[in-house]
């Protein structure tokens, strides 16, 4: 016959188990996040930036051909720009394992170039220089990505 006291004891035991599990998962997740980034993480970030650079180039090309509305150009540049800034921040903020520091450091200026390329597109009348910047960023990032291998 289970009394309320029994139930409370059971609840307490289950609560302790749950808290221990949550704590263990949180600790594990924290430990993993604090590990310095390896080759894959650096390469993934570079891949994101490479894709974003390519997309910026294509978007500007389509705009010059009149295939997209100017409203779309501005708005999508904003959305893409947010992603670019986020990826750039991720790349710069990574703690990287020493063997791959060179890889990351080679990509950072290209990422910065990309950020600079997308910013004016978010205003009316983007300068034509943006497209060249985007393309150069793209080619540089593609090369770094390839050198990182899979």
């Amino acid at each position, binding site marked *: 016959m289970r009394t309320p006291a029994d*139930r*409370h004891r*059971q*609840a307490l*035991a*289950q*609560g302790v188990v*749950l808290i221990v599990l949550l704590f263990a998962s949180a600790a594990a997740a924290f430990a993993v996040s604090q590990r310095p980034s390896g080759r894959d993480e650096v390469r993934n970030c570079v891949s994101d930036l490479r894709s974003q650079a390519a997309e910026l180039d294509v978007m500007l090309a389509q705009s010059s051909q009149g295939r997209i509305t100017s409203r779309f150009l501005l708005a999508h540049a904003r959305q893409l720009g947010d992603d670019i800034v986020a990826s750039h921040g991720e790349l710069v903020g990574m703690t990287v394992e020493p063997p791959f520091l060179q890889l990351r450091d080679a990509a950072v200026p290209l990422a910065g170039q990309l950020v600079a390329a997308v910013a004016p597109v978010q205003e009316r009348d983007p300068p034509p220089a943006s497209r060249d910047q985007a393309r150069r960023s793209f080619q540089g990032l593609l090369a770094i990505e390839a050198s990182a291998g899979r």
Partner: protein
Amino acid sequence: MSGDRRLDLLREVLDHEVVDSEGIGCGMVDDLEFRVTEQGLVVTALLVGPGAWVPRLPALFAVMAGKVFGRQRVRVPWHHVVKVGEVIRLDATAPSLGLGVLDRKAGRWLARLPGS
């Protein structure tokens, strides 16, 4: 409820939908009430409400859910049960039995809005 047949309470009554005399859903059978007689256990009522289903949860969740949902429950005496089939049909309306109170409260609150 008339007629004699074997009723598997667990399979056919517990956790089945309760429908009132007007065909409106008024909850699920969250628990059953029994009385000890010389013939054995006799079911005396349906129990509907958090007070009935919260204790069926594992202990930790029962304690937490009890605090959130409360211990309120409605006791529907067995003699109100007309038919045990697809759903459990009752011989009275939900309001008269104290069922579906929260739903009517929510309905009254929503009725203030246009198009309800």
